[in-house]
Structures are given as C-alpha cells and as structure tokens.
C-alpha cells in the first residue's frame, strides 16, 4: 500500500520525465478518429440545458425584483 502511494506520488512529481512516455495505451484512437466529439457533444447538450435554465431563472427573478420594488 505504502509503496504504491510512494510510487504514485513520485510519478506525479516527476511528470516532466514521464511526459515523453508514449508507450502507454491511452484514448488516442478515440481522439484521432473523431469519436471524442460524441462525448463532448453530449456534455455540451447537458451544459446548454443547465445554462439556459439558469438564464431563464435569472430573468424571472429580475422581473420579480422589478415588480416587488426591491
């Protein structure tokens, strides 16, 4: 357990040395053939929904503030 933590910690602190390590399998194909767009599109859809909701709420509250003379 402790060895694993130490290993992990040293990896993080010596990131510069590991930056060139290209042998590890990452999501490279997912990115190069463009499928990461799908994930980001889903995230952005959710995000726009939340933001539109927030803007609508903001406007509604502004209107209420006007009518109640705060």
């Amino acid at each position: 357990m402790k060895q694993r933590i130490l290993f992990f910690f040293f990896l993080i602190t010596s990131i510069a040395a590991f930056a060139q390590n290209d042998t590890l399998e990452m999501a490279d194909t997912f990115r190069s053939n463009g499928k990461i767009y799908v994930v980001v599109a889903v995230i952005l859809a959710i995000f726009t929904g939340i933001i539109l909701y927030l803007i609508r709420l903001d406007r509604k509250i502004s209107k209420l503030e006007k009518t109640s003379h705060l």
Partner: protein
Amino acid sequence: MNKWWWKIACILLLLYTFIAGLNVFNLSVFKVPRLPILYETIRNLYYHVSMWFTMMILFTISVVHAVKYLRTNDLRSDIRSRQYAVVGIIFGLLGYGTGFIWAFNTWTDPNQSQVASFGAIAKDPKLIGAAIALLIYAAYLVLRDSISDFDKKARIGSVYNIFAFAFLFPSIWIIPRLMESLHPGGNGNPALNPSDTDARMRLVFYPAVLGWTLLGVWIATLKVRMAFIKEKKLLRK
C-alpha cells in the same frame, strides 16, 4: 439581468473546460501525461478537483457574510451566508460523487472484485474527513432553519457557520495529511503548487476552477435574490 459579463465569462470558461479538457481537436497543447493506472482519467482533475475548489470558495464567502452579519446585524448578510453555504454543500456532494466514480475505477485492487476492494478504499481518511465536514455544514442548515425567531436564527446560524468553517481545516486539510492515504496531494499544497501539476494541465485546470466557481456563485446569487424577494417584509423593518 444585472452585470452580465461574469456570467458570460463563466459560460465561456466552462465551454473551454469541456472542449480543451477532453482535447476534442487533438492538439498537443492539451495532451495529458501518460501515467499508468490513471490513463485518461487524469482529466478528471479539471472536474473533480474543481468541485472542491468551488466548495471551499463558496464556504469562504459564506463565513465572510456570517461575520458581516454579526458585526452589522444586517439580515441580508445572514441570508447570503446561508445560501452560499447551501450551494457549497451541493458542490461538495458533487465532488464526493465524482471522486467516488474516479476512485472506483482507479484505486480498486485488480486482483479482487471492484466491490470487495472498494470496502478498503472507503476507509480513506480523506473521504471520511470530507464527509464529516459536509455533515457539519448540513447540521448548519438544520440548526439555522429550525429556529423560527429571525434574529435568533441569524445570530446562532452565523456563529455556527464560523465554527463549521473552522472545522473544515482539521477535517479536510490537516487530519487526512497526517494519515496514510491513497488520495494524491497529501504533501505540500496540492493543485496550488505549480510543480505538482503538468504545465499543459494547468492551462486547462486554472480556467476550469474559475469557471466552476463562477457557476457556483451565479447559482448562489440567484438563490439569494429569491430569498430577498421572499423575505421582503422582514428586510424592510
């Protein structure tokens, strides 16, 4: 809608966080370090860690308003203090949930079933400390909202809020660092120390923190304005 600019900044920063954070356009600037065990999950830094940053900032705003109430006896400060604390708790819960997903996929022992080895992970001091801190803040809401007299409610709430904020430090910053933990960032100043995080990741991480914080503040200000309308009569006195 008053003062739009920071809300637009919030949206733009978060769009940047999603697009650059997941490196949609496959640019070398946004490539992340290749680390075993973590792999692409290292990108969770932009989301999971930002949640805790936002929580900490919102709790700080909350305690500032609590102190302000005690100095001025202005009920508006008490309402602000309460609403910032609620949104802070929500971000804390989101940080907990995202941390759960991340830990479940990276910390578990590959030789055991995920569920079995998660039992060992759940005992991590950082998780317990964060849970205690959030529960103390939950108690703040229960305590403040259970008192019907508005003056007493505001005063007791504000005093308790200061205690809750003070307790954040031992429970999430000090005790977890004194114990053995799988959670990274036990030494020094995690995330704030520039040499801890890869330069390319900082390019996304700092805007991400700012964007999420602005989102939290936005939600909190909406809640504050709603509460002001609701307590209109009380505030006029």
